């Protein structure tokens, strides 16, 4: 695993599993996206499975969404929430929609960018090269702090995800950026637990 901080690029020589192939297949469909949350830790080796993979995408109009919908269905994915494209589009303003292939687990949780943190993740995403494939993931500093924030609900899984990423990349992380997010998200106590 090689992380070039300046190019914001990580090169992984990992073997692809069923979950990775599922994610890569879906990520070829939207024009732009960023993967956030649990799968980021899993991609970098965390020893756990997951039911869903969170994907953020920039706001789009109905026709653009309809084109994407056709590509998604053409690639064999289906929407869990509805099979009607206009209904799915309306839902996106309220909540995420989920796509699966053959069986509902795992599924893609497809969410529109809604707040500053989402926007930051998207604008500063990191390219992960895996052989001929590439995925875009949230910046690690932000990912660690956000996982610590989620762990405040006593969720051990999120604390462990944060610890995995921190331990793995600590020599390469931008400490100022990480501490800035830790302060902004008010997770100093949780941060102490993983360092």
């Amino acid at each position, binding site marked *: *695993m090689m992380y070039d901080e300046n190019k914001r690029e990580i090169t*992984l*020589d*990992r*073997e*692809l*599993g*069923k*979950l990775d192939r599922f994610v890569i297949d879906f990520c070829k469909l939207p024009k732009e996206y960023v993967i956030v949350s649990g799968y980021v830790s*899993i991609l*970098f*080796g*965390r*020893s*756990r*499975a997951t039911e869903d993979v969170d994907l953020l995408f920039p706001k789009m109009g109905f026709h653009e969404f309809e084109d994407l919908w056709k590509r998604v269905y053409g690639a064999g994915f289906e929407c869990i929430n509805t099979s009607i494209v206009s209904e799915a589009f309306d839902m996106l303003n309220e909540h995420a929609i989920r796509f699966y292939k*053959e*069986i509902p*687990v*795992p599924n893609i949780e497809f969410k529109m960018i809604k707040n500053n943190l989402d926007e930051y993740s998207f604008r500063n995403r990191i390219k992960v090269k895996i052989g001929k494939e590439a995925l875009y993931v949230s910046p690690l500093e932000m990912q660690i702090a956000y996982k610590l924030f989620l762990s405040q609900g006593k969720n*051990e899984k999120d*604390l*462990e995800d944060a*610890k*995995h990423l921190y*331990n*793995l990349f600590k020599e390469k992380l931008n400490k100022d950026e990480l501490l800035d997010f830790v302060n902004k998200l008010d997770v100093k106590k949780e941060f102490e*637990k*993983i360092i």
Partner: protein
Amino acid sequence: MNINLEELKSDRQKNSEERMKFVEFWANYVKTHSDKEWSRQQNVLIDSQIESAHNLVKKKVEK
């Protein structure tokens, strides 16, 4: 039935600490071994969960 809540809480705390130690151990393993090596092991765990889900759905359809 008498339940010793303090004992349970202490076990929960110990379990949590042990899990964090394992996360540290595994992150170190990932750092010090080739991507191919750790990912092969990780895939055994994740692929088996997905296969189980597939088999469960298949069984239900067959019924």
